[in-house]
């Protein structure tokens, strides 16, 4: 038993204490009481980029600042803001970079148009193939 306690102690996460002496923000790791609001908040948190560990979403990251951002998202949703308002509030401060759901801009429209373009090109190629077969028969 004593060993068990010792090992639990050894494996406990101490990393949270490494960077800052303060506890996480109130809603960093605590869900909202209303399940519908929590669902909206967590959906948005999956789509917001962590500022410290830039390839993670704030939902995935353990960085203290990601926790602060999660808390902001939950507090704002609880206060009645829509996810899009919160996303735009962050875009106003950090640019489109901060969202994993990039809006259509002159920089990003090829991304959105490319699949449609490829489908049209594929249909055109396929059409050529079918026609040739018919001609032979």
């Amino acid at each position, binding site marked *: 038993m004593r060993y068990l306690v010792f090992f639990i102690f050894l494996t406990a996460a101490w990393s949270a204490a490494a*960077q*800052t*002496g*303060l506890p996480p*923000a*109130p809603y960093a790791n605590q869900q909202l009481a209303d399940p519908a609001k929590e669902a909206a908040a967590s959906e948005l948190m999956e789509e917001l980029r962590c*500022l*410290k560990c*830039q390839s993670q979403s704030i939902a995935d990251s353990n960085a*203290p*600042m990601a926790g*602060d*951002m999660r*808390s*902001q998202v939950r507090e704002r949703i609880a206060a009645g803001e829509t996810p899009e308002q919160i996303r735009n509030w*962050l*875009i*106003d*401060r*950090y*640019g489109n*970079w901060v969202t994993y759901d990039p809006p259509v801009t002159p920089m990003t429209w090829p991304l959105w148009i490319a699949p449609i373009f490829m489908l049209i090109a594929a249909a055109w190629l396929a059409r050529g193939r079918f026609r040739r077969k018919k001609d032979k028969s």
Partner: protein
Amino acid sequence: MRRWVLWLPLGLFALFFVAVAVGLMTPKDNIIESKMIGKPMPAFSLPAAIEQRPGLSSNDLVDGKPKLLNIFASWCVPCIAEAPQLLELQQAGAEIHAIASRDTPGDIANFLNRWGNPYSRIGSDATSSVQLELGSSGVPETFVINGKGIIVHQHIGDIRKENVPELLKMLKEAE
């Protein structure tokens, strides 16, 4: 089928290859600039971070005199590196306010005792809320704010020796 069409896949592959090679060889850029430059300071009010200095609110930044707003933390190593430069700026007449990011009064007092205190006000931002308002993504960062409370410049990372004259010049221009 025309001849050149045969070369099309190879051409496309070459294009793809060049795009990937350029992407791999370009050094990674992790710096996120705030989009708040040129905009007025968002409204905020922070409690005092240590007993010896008052807290900081956005009103303190709109009194007609340009200022530096430094975001620091006692747990931040580059903040130690920039401490002498901040003291130099203060001695040259710059007014420097500070936001202490996620920090405790005891740790801040120790940090300032050890590395010097160039700040006239220090607000404690325990949950990074003002940092998010400012579009700041880390410590240290320094904002230049003009007399009307408009953010005119953001310096990301520690202030080096060579940045001191630049910042003084910007403060002068912001009058």
